[in-house]
């Protein structure tokens, strides 16, 4: 199975005007890696999900996500946003943005991985390790190792 996250999908110092901009920048990375076929279509699916309920999570996390027809393999785009970007969380702006892209069909295996990721997000140590990581490659390998994929 393709890794959920690779070095190319990590942005260490993202500067974004708002959550739409942050999401778009990360989605572009997914598209560049061939994991998203139609950027606008995918962003529309994410926006639709975002409209249901803000995805700002406690602990400075923005978690835009969608299951979309335009996603080829389950993927995670990850950005550190030192300046913060508002994702609607009650406790303040997000300094970590995780963009989860899941295909609509497919087996439950990759969904199990995404479930494991969602559980990790709640743990402070997981977040801190990402913030402290020296480079994109170590972020990717740490996250990939944590969620159980090879």
């Amino acid at each position, binding site marked *: 199975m393709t890794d959920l996250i690779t070095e190319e999908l990590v942005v260490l110092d993202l500067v974004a005007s708002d959550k739409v901009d942050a999401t778009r920048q990360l989605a572009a990375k997914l598209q560049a890696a061939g994991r998203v076929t139609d950027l606008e279509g995918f962003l529309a699916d994410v926006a639709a*999900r975002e409209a249901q*309920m803000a995805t700002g999570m406690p602990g400075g996390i923005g978690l835009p996500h*969608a299951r979309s027809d335009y996603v080829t393999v389950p993927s995670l785009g990850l950005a550190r946003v030192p300046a913060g970007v508002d994702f609607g969380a009650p*406790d303040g702006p997000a300094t970590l943005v995780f963009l989860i892209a899941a295909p609509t069909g497919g087996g439950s295996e990759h*969904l199990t991985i*995404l*479930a494991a990721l969602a559980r990790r*997000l*709640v743990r402070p140590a997981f977040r801190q390790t990402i913030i402290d990581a020296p480079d994109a490659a170590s972020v990717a390998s740490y996250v990939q190792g944590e969620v159980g994929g090879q």
Partner: protein
Amino acid sequence: MKFVAVTSCPTGIAHTYMAAENLEQAGKAAGHDVQVETQGSAGTVPLSDDVIAAADGVIYAADLEVKGKGRFAGKPFIDVGVKKAVHDGPGVIAAAVAAVENAPKAGTPEAAAMAAAAPGPTTKVTNDAGVGTKIRQWLMTGVSYMIPFVAAGGILIALGFLFGGDEVVTKLYGGTYDGVTYADTANNLPAAFPKGGNFDLIMQQAGFAGVLFVLGKISFFMLVPILSGFIAFAIADRPGLVPGIVGGLLAAVLNTGFLGGLVSGFAAGGVALFLARLKVPKGVRGVMPVVVIPLVSVFVVGLFMIFVVGKPIAAATTWLTDWLTGLSGSTAVVLGIILGLMMGFDLGGPINKVAYTFATAGLTTAIAVESTGQAQPALQIMAAVMAAGMTPPLGMALATAVRRKLFTEAERDNGLACWLLGASFITEGAIPFAAAHPLRVIPSCMVGSAVTGGLVMLFGNELRAPHGGIFVVALVSKPVLYLLAIAIGMVITAFLVIVLMSLDAKKTEEIAAAENAMEGVPA
């Protein structure tokens, strides 16, 4: 404290699991055990029944409808939505603790009321069970909803006989009694349904006893639809209810008995489940549950019941009647045994009805020529059929009294009612048992009824009334021997049921205990 929680969210990939993790950690931090069932897109791993049983309270952090909510019925709960669980785990746990502390103590009337007010109809189905267990759970769900109808209908009918005598049937459904001719108040509708304003006619002809009798009959008419409907409900959840009930009504109207109801219940459940799982375009999805699934499932199950089930049963009934008529010349005892087997087989279903109709038809001609003073085989046949129809419920009543642990609380209660139903020759009283454990109960009923039928023919008892049970025993010749024959059949049926159910007694007891636990009754 121990909590169980259910989390879900619209996409099923993020909030569901974050909320789960948050609740588990917040629970641990506060010294509580929290077990979470994540109903997300990665599939649901259901909480085990043991975990649910041990929980003090339930946390719903779900933005979608909770699957299998009935499993948590009766426990104190809080419903917070998934967002609250993601953002404020400790707050949710604190609220759950408060809910448990403020809940009525178990065993108090308030707690019982809470259990009774469980949200919506529930099923006895656990998701992780094997096929055999599932089939049994589907059956038990149908049976548990049917039992109150048996009790209400059977007792009302018995009261109708008690106050109105066995002639209440003639007064209701037409015929001549004591020189007076009565019209059929049911017209050509199924005997259970009095037509519109005909309640005036019922009161006029049969009085209050007639009304009791008709109320009982209407309750009885619902046995098969309810059985069928809730088997389908257990299989396919809400979409199963409509085809299950309509199929069950057809089973009742087509006189296929409770066995026909089992068939329609399983057919309806299967069809509804299939339709509910179909992948359909988004545009159609909205009208699936309210239009497409009910329409298609009723159509399919209805045609199936009419042509695949109803037609052959009607043909078989005709054939069986002819065959039985041809047997009239054979040895009396053998005929009694055969009639007994038929009475005990489907307990008010088509085969039972063939035997009963055979007996009542003979009765009519026998009474017409009754001046000769000779022994009347037709009167003996009537006596044998009635006795053989009394032993199944009586045998089940005895079995539930002797070996309580083999039965659920609801079945034990039904067993109590069965004393009265059996004594009143209301064979249907045994249906809940036969529907739940067909392979054990039906053979037991058949053997007991066959022995009783044979004995009555041997003793030569004669009966001039077509129904009435214990209320017409005074009309039976040699009543002591007649009661003896019934008692022997009753004991045999009870004995066989206990033996057959004890074959895997441990499992049967476990299932009964588990179901009692779900209903909140002590073993």
